């Protein structure tokens, strides 16, 4: 499908990919090759921190795809992120083997602690990486598919849909808190040792995970761009702007929503799976409704319906979060986040990138017209030639 690729790569998209790729290569190299303490060396803790931001950027992209382009405001997308994270966490737990505190070769520590005698059936297969990787996509995808099938077929839209997505993530939060649910309860999954045979704590592994996260961000971005720049993307925008009109044109709106919602959930799952080995823990607090709302704020700040803006928003807001929560202002972070959301809604309704685009558009349009005119002339020439 080369036509889909060329169509999706405009100048902004190419620039974004190049920047992410450069970070994905240069930051790990600087961390590994330069001597510690050198001015240009990126310390390991920063690699892990930025890796976390990159995962958040993927989550933001997945939200922008459904919210910015199709008008589906999911306030429970953190659930798909956390499910992908748990699938990866289960693999990492099984890799611990007999190195756990209780030394049980099969059962993770928390199961031994709860006096469980055998591994629950749903933990089978997670010792194999390919199976776990498949589950990272499949579990969030399947949940989104079932949830979306019910919601979109019944034409649940707008604020009602947002509320039931919140309810979904909250229900999962409560379920994962329970010890007998079999995912480590309150403490979640942690104390990871190896991933694919490499020590998760090692500098090299962290650098590789960072590079992989950047790669995943690029791939996710390319998929989103391919979707939104296809005719399907136009249909999504049509649904966002005038849903019933789209129906009267003969489009099966619920199928489109279901497709894009499921795709988005799979992307969120991948983001969660890359996040877990970098932060070293996954626990039920990842399902907290607040997390999902925060992710929506990133997209609003960066500019919804721009993709690049969503990723940028995730990084900017999280950088601010790290900066402010580590200083004297820490107790006020939630107020700042709330104020940020209110201010962005009032003053920058299109977000950072959307506002920039609106400002830049007149310049670009002039160039675009010139290009279009020359293209039209060429078309005219080639058609004239064909007529001869």
């Amino acid at each position, binding site marked *: *499908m080369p*036509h*889909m690729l060329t169509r999706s790569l405009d100048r902004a998209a190419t620039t974004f990919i190049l920047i992410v790729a450069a970070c994905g290569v240069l930051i790990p190299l600087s961390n590994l090759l330069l001597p510690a303490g050198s001015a240009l060396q990126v310390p390991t803790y920063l690699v892990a921190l930025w890796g976390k931001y990159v995962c958040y950027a993927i989550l933001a992209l997945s939200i922008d795809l459904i919210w910015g382009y199709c008008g589906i405001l999911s306030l429970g997308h953190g659930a798909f992120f956390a499910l992908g994270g748990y699938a990866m966490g289960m693999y990492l737990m099984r890799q611990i083997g007999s190195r756990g505190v209780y030394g049980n070769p099969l059962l993770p520590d928390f199961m031994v602690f709860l006096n469980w005698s055998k591994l629950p059936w749903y933990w089978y297969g997670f010792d194999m990486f390919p199976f776990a990787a498949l589950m990272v996509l499949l579990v969030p995808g399947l949940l989104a598919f079932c949830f979306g099938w019910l919601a979109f077929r019944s034409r649940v839209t707008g604020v009602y849909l947002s509320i039931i997505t919140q309810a979904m993530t909250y229900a999962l939060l409560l379920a994962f808190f329970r010890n007998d649910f079999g995912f480590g309860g309150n403490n979640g999954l942690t104390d990871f040792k190896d991933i694919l045979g490499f020590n998760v704590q090692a500098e090299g592994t962290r650098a590789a995970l960072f590079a992989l996260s950047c790669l995943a961000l690029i791939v996710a971005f390319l998929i989103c761009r391919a*979707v939104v720049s*296809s*005719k*399907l993307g*136009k*249909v999504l*925008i*049509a649904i966002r*702007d*005038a849903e*019933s*009109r*789209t*129906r*009267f*044109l*003969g*489009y*099966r*709106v619920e*199928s*489109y929503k279901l*497709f894009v919602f499921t795709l988005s959930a799979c992307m969120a799952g991948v983001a969660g799976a890359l996040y877990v080995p970098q932060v070293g823990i996954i626990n039920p607090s990842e399902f907290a409704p607040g997390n999902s709302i925060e992710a929506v704020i990133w997209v609003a700040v960066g500019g919804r319906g721009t993709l690049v803006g969503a990723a940028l928003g995730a990084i900017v807001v999280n950088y601010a979060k790290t900066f402010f929560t580590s200083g004297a202002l820490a107790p006020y972070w939630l107020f700042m986040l709330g104020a940020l959301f209110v201010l962005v809604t009032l003053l920058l309704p299109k977000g950072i990138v959307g506002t920039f685009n609106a400002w830049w558009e007149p310049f670009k349009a002039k160039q675009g017209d010139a290009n*279009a005119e020359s293209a039209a002339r060429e078309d005219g020439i080639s058609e004239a030639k064909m007529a001869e």
Partner: protein
Amino acid sequence: MNVMDTRSTSALLYLDGVHVSFDGFHAINNLSLTLEPGEMRAIIGPNGAGKTTMMDIITGKTKPDEGTVLFDGVTDLTRLDETRIAELGIGRKFQKPTVFESQSVEDNLLLALNVDHSVKGTLFWRGSRSEAARIDKVLETVRLKDVCRKLAGSLSHGQKQWLEIGMLLAQDPKLLLVDEPVAGMTDVETHQTAELLKQINKDHTVMVVEHDMTFVRELGVKVTCLHEGTVLAEGTIDQVSSNDRVIEVYLGR
């Protein structure tokens, strides 16, 4: 499929004994109406007469409590949803112009074309010359060629109405339902719209709901007057407008 074995009527659209009530309010009351293939029909009537509700029933937005709604003599429309009915070939223009404002005029027409509307079909869609030619033809018919790259939201009210009619043309349905096409138009635009509809009627069946009597007269087609959800009078514009009941409830003395 909800297809009957034998065709019971020659009409393209056949409504018989249709009832709809919303919370006890009878919006449509024993409505019967037929539209022959190739016909253009004007529907008039006071506010609340059930004109828009009738279109909602035909396009599947509202389900009737009772009655028969047949398309092409064989298909029971009351059992189908909006998408399916649109696929069968019934297009609709809304009372308030509804175009995709954040997309270009061209893209609006592209979306309306009656080509593969499946998720897979649109995801892997590539433009073709025949599609471009069809869009071009519609742009010429509705006189929007000069603004085809502009965003639909930046068009004037009249241009939006035409774009929506253009979208109907791109959809190329067998039956066009047009709800108040000249609301808010200048006299010149109204006249041009009447011409446009007459031209469209050459190869489409059309049903027009309109309040503007000058416009209805200009169309020069059979007129049905609705009142309280049922047919009050039917005939030429002169017959209908001289009907005592019509004068009483709608036109005024």
